[in-house]
């Protein structure tokens, strides 16, 4: 089912509407940045990959026709960009330090906890991480995640099963110290 707004946006963009595409970027930029950050663990890489995602979207606009929703189409492009991403540990470490400074107002425990979770995510194989991020954080169904990842729903389910088993072990200590959790 194509949302009416998406249909209108698509028509505008295909007619060369710069403004329409800019609006598309504006509306989806936080979601794509968030996805890229969860998949890379780096703010700088997330910025680069988000930009790459939208540039690719602009260049491959013809593919948009087959998609039900602009967000699903952007998810797929972003996931592909991130799957091709190479780990840059140095930048990740730098990010954590910068983040620590930015989040000075937040309680130290929360920052530490968030870093532990992101680090646990980064220990998952890339495709398992993508499955967890798309379903848990972005709220996609298995079918939507499968479309974004270019695999079957069964594969998504297996990846989620494996990812959950591993991340539970990695985050066991957070459950104990998590108070309400």
């Amino acid at each position, binding site marked *: 089912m194509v949302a009416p707004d998406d249909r209108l946006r698509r028509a505008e963009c295909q007619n060369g509407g*710069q403004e329409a*595409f*800019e609006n598309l*970027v*504006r509306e989806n*930029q*936080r979601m794509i*940045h*968030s996805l890229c*950050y*969860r998949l890379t663990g780096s*703010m700088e890489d997330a*910025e680069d990959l*988000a*930009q790459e995602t*939208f*540039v690719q979207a*602009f*260049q491959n606009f013809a593919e948009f026709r087959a998609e039900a929703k602009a967000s699903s189409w952007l998810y797929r492009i972003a996931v592909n960009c991130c799957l091709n991403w190479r780990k840059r540990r140095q930048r990740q470490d730098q*990010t954590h330090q910068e*983040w620590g400074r*930015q*989040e000075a107002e937040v309680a130290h425990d929360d920052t530490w*906890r*968030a*870093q532990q*979770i*992101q680090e646990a*995510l980064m220990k998952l194989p890339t495709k398992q991480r993508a499955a*967890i991020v798309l379903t*848990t*954080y972005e709220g996609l169904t298995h079918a939507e995640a499968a479309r974004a990842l270019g695999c079957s729903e069964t594969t998504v389910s297996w990846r989620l099963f494996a990812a*959950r088993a591993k*991340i*539970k072990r990695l*985050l*066991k200590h*957070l*459950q104990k110290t*998590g108070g309400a*959790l």
Partner: protein
Amino acid sequence: MKNSELDQILKSAPVPDRPEAYWDQFPRRVMAKTDRLRTRADAETNHPRTEPFWLRSRFQFATVGLGLAISGLLLVFVLGSRQGRQLSITEPQLAAARKYFQEIETLFPGQVQAIVFDQQGSHLLLAERSNVPTSSPLYLRICGPKGCQNYVTFSGQQIRLNGETCEVLLDHHGNVLLVGQRWIFSTAQASAKHARYQVAAQPLEMTL
């Protein structure tokens, strides 16, 4: 831990936020980039390039140039090292050959014409009688297309080198000569190298 508990833990980690100015500027940066790409694409369509593909940008030119320079340096290095490489005989090789020769000479006095060390092991060339002239044993290391062979032999003896017979001679200056049917090699030559073989030779007794 239940899946719902895990989800709750995962969701408790927020994505680090960025300032509002960033979100305001990001779409403009994307549009600026797409504009640049479109302008470039238009320019290429209107003014197709005639220069070779490897000269289409300074970056590509620099990359190709750097690649060629590195390839050239590697080639020079490899060729230089091949040219300058001289086959050498190491002290452990000499010590092992010396020990082996002494044992064989004890078993077959005056009969040892040559001992050959190759990939298959060691081979003895023995005379039927104890009439091999007494002279200083020589250690030879010869490398060719089929690998390396080491010999302990004497001046005046013949050895087989890849199916070819050659004579080993020691001149009065202590230089070793190998005389084949169509070639001659002397350790006195500066290059110490034959067209097909690399040879190193040294009297064995000098280090005894």
